[in-house]
């Protein structure tokens, strides 16, 4: 059962990633792209955790944690760049 | 899987090379960044691909592991290329600020007079 659920969830996230990609490529606004990239990051976090469950290992936790951190930082940075130009003024 | 990795390397290399051949610093930096991604994956793939065999030794099971050496090499390469990219970014900024344009080519300076007769 878990296997099937894992497969289903993975498929969902796979599709989600494609949709995110679609939005990043098409935009039209910079905000859309940033938003879609952030969504992509969050979907990837989910996939990483999912992969850990699938493999039964906690080895990928740090990766997920780190992706979450850098996802936040880079999204803020992209926005700050557009808002203020200098991201660490 | 191998085909995906190989084609990904190829795509990034092609993209990287194309951008590296542009005439402004910024795309060149992007191109070199892409190239460094490509070469990192390439170097990694020299240890062959494996799934769920992370080279973290496990006391409990007698599993096989993926080749750790290329991974270590890639880590080193990533760090180095990070340093290099940072320097490149700064130098290109410097060049831009000095010259007020971010062209990467040097216009040859032709002097009117000949050097010697």
């Amino acid at each position, binding site marked *: 059962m878990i296997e099937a*659920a894992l497969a289903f969830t993975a498929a969902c996230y796979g599709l989600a990633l494609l949709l995110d990609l679609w939005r990043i490529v098409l935009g039209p606004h910079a905000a859309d792209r940033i938003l879609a990239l952030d969504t992509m990051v969050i979907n990837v976090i989910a996939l990483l955790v999912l992969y850990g469950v699938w493999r039964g290992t906690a080895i990928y936790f740090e990766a997920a944690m780190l992706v979450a951190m850098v996802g*936040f930082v880079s999204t803020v940075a992209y926005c700050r760049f557009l808002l203020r130009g200098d991201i660490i003024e | 899987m191998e085909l995906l990795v190989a084609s990904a390397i190829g795509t990034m290399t092609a993209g990287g090379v194309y951008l590296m051949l542009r005439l402004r610093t910024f795309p060149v930096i992007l191109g070199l960044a892409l190239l460094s991604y490509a070469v990192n994956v390439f170097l990694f793939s020299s240890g062959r691909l494996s799934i769920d065999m992370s080279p973290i030794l496990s006391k409990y099971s007698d599993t096989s592991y993926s080749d750790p050496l290329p991974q270590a090499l890639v880590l080193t390469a990533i760090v180095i290329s990070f340093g290099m990219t940072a320097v490149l970014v700064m130098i290109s900024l410097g060049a831009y600020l000095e010259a007020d344009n971010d062209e990467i080519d040097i216009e040859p300076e032709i002097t009117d007079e000949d050097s010697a007769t």
Partner: protein
Amino acid sequence: MNLIFEIFISGALVVSGIFGFVGSYGLVKLKSTLQRLHAPTKATTLGVGGVLVASMLYFYASTGHISVHEMLIAVFLLLTAPIIANFIAKTYMARNLRASDLPKSQSRKGWALYEDPPKP
């Protein structure tokens, strides 16, 4: 593994998958940027949450230890998602809307995006 656990885990996974998908679907479907902003920030939070719950349950079920580090990711996302949404919204507004397009602020100063903060 306990069937109850299997059911809960599978349920959490399926919920997660659905919300994960919906978030991105909304991103594509909705017609304005500000609307799109609602889709992923909300749906993906529960999406990731579902996976994390599944993971915690799974590791508890398979090893007997309570695994809490999944919580950290959840906490982190919960703390950061509003900031991200706020920034993206501002990014959009700053580039596409003028102060006059927005309702008036109901305090002494206008919206921070368009108006300098009061002098201390």
